[in-house]
């Protein structure tokens, strides 16, 4: 089943003509309403009139996360605040988050894209959707929520946490679909099993999982333990939130990018040159229909490859393979984006701390854990255990407050962490998906 059948099955020629028209519109609008785009286009000597074919998109400069940071909080908005009906935020590279905004029409668009995603997963208005994506500034919770309501399904706004309660709701309310991170799905399975609940006998049939990378092996394990079909959804706040691309239940092989709303490119992360479909590259998106926060050639740092072969579901929109990695040092811990530099900001703000730290990321069982090893120094050292323990607690609290992740802090001996002449190896990621 297809939600917007007309648009999702547009023949390529018509789709590309639509993309070109919308691209010209967004480029013109961005150039004339957002100072940043006028400056960055002027810098490379391109004007809106230069965009006459889809291929001309490569004449436009890239937008990167640093640009969002430089224009924090609302500098890239193309409409006045009175037209903005929602603000969301995601992790930034330092202390400040990345801010995004939505007009009423953007919310409509987003809701439709999420509804499309649910239908691609085989859901209808008869389904009951257990939404365990976090509600709040994070786009996951509200994104899935509005999409479910747009579809007409019955949404249970669970958000994250409270696992025992979640399992009780899964049993008592009998939702037929679940949305959360794939690692949380495994965690629920594990906790449920420990509670003696037969997770496979629940009414769940489908899971829509995203916000972190996951493997085929994990998919099989989730499907086995929960007795469901597990599908991948992709998105990022800057582009719109979840609903940028979705795996179809018929194909289960790559995620359809909703090309009537987004132009997707893959580039070589080092040179910026486009790579052809089939080859791995960094995903770059241009928003075609967003009003409040248009984004031109935004570098996501996610690595993937485009699959142009027709899909058995009938959708003509190109598929992207599951994200295979990042071209930067961002980590995803229990679905939350974390930049090592953010952690560094927090540590340096605490008096006496040396900037010698290391992050150890592991997955014990099903959930990610983060350990921050911080080197002891003369300034930091106190003869009293309680003082050192308070420092550990302070770091954990500040990291939780600013980044939204729970980290265990371990104080280690002076000069025991590896020093290197180039960039220090800050992150040890021991997870294997």
């Amino acid at each position, binding site marked *: 089943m297809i939600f917007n059948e007309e648009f999702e099955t547009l023949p390529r020629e018509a789709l590309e003509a639509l993309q070109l028209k919308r691209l010209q519109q967004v480029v013109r609008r961005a150039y004339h309403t957002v100072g940043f785009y006028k400056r960055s286009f002027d810098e490379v000597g391109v004007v809106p009139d230069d965009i006459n074919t889809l291929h001309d998109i490569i004449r436009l400069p890239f937008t990167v996360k640093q640009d969002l940071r430089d224009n924090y909080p609302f500098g890239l908005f193309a409409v006045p605040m009175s037209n903005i009906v929602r603000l969301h935020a995601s992790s930034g590279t330092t202390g400040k988050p990345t801010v995004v905004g939505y007009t009423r029409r953007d919310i409509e668009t987003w809701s439709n894209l999420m509804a499309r995603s649910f239908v691609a997963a085989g859901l209808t208005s008869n389904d009951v959707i257990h939404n365990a994506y976090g509600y709040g500034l994070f786009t996951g919770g509200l994104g899935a929520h509005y999409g479910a309501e747009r579809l007409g399904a019955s949404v249970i706004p669970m958000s994250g946490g409270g696992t025992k309660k979640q399992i009780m709701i899964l049993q008592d309310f009998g939702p037929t679909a679940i949305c959360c991170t794939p690692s949380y799905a495994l965690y629920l399975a594990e906790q449920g099993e420990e509670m003696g609940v037969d997770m496979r006998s629940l009414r769940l049939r489908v899971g829509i999982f995203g916000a972190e990378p996951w493997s085929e092996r994990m998919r099989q394990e989730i499907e086995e333990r929960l007795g469901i079909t597990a599908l991948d959804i992709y998105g990022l706040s800057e582009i719109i939130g979840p609903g940028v691309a979705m795996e179809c239940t018929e194909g289960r092989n790559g995620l359809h990018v909703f090309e009537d709303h987004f132009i997707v490119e893959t580039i070589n992360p080092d040179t910026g040159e486009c790579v052809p479909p089939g080859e791995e590259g960094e995903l770059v998106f241009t928003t075609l229909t967003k009003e409040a926060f248009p984004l031109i050639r935004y570098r996501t740092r996610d690595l993937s490859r485009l699959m142009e072969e027709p899909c058995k579901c009938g959708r003509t929109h190109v598929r992207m393979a599951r994200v295979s990695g990042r071209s930067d040092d961002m980590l995803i811990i229990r679905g939350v984006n974390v930049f090592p530099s953010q952690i560094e900001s927090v540590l340096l703000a605490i008096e006496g701390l040396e900037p010698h730290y290391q992050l150890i990321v592991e997955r014990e069982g099903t959930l990610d854990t983060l350990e921050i090893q911080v080197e*002891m*120094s*003369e300034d930091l*050292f*106190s*003869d*009293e*255990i309680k003082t*050192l*323990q308070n420092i*550990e607690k302070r770091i954990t609290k500040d990291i939780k407050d600013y980044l939204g992740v729970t980290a265990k802090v*371990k*104080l*280690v*001996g*002076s*000069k*025991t962490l590896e020093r290197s002449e180039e960039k220090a190896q800050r992150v040890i990621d021991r997870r294997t998906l």
Partner: protein
Amino acid sequence: MKVEQISIFLENKPGGLEHVTRVLADADINIRALSLADTSDFGILRLILNNTNTAEKALQDEGFTVRRSDVVAVEIPDRPGGMHGISKVLAAENVNVEYAYAFVERSGENAIIIFRFDDIDRGIKVLLENGFTVLPGEKVYRL
């Protein structure tokens, strides 16, 4: 009246104590008193030595994180009730003890308690006022 103690940060893994004691042995340092306090992740090794300066330098050169602090050494008769005698007084005078450790003297008649007080000067004052024998650093280093 104050005794200098050296505290050393140790990660909670095998070999820490071996390393410290090797450094001290190589520097010909004699340990007078020792206490190892632990948490799940790290420990603090507290030592009273016969040569604080040499020991501190030797340990720092080896990369250890070291801190000097002042503690109080009190001599009490080595018999039942000895410890209670002191703690009774400290409690009555509201002197807060951060930590303490103890050992018996060679002669067998007395025990020595090492105290770390919240307020060291007040602690010493209270002990002296109540007739306790507070040992000066020089005496402890040479025990």
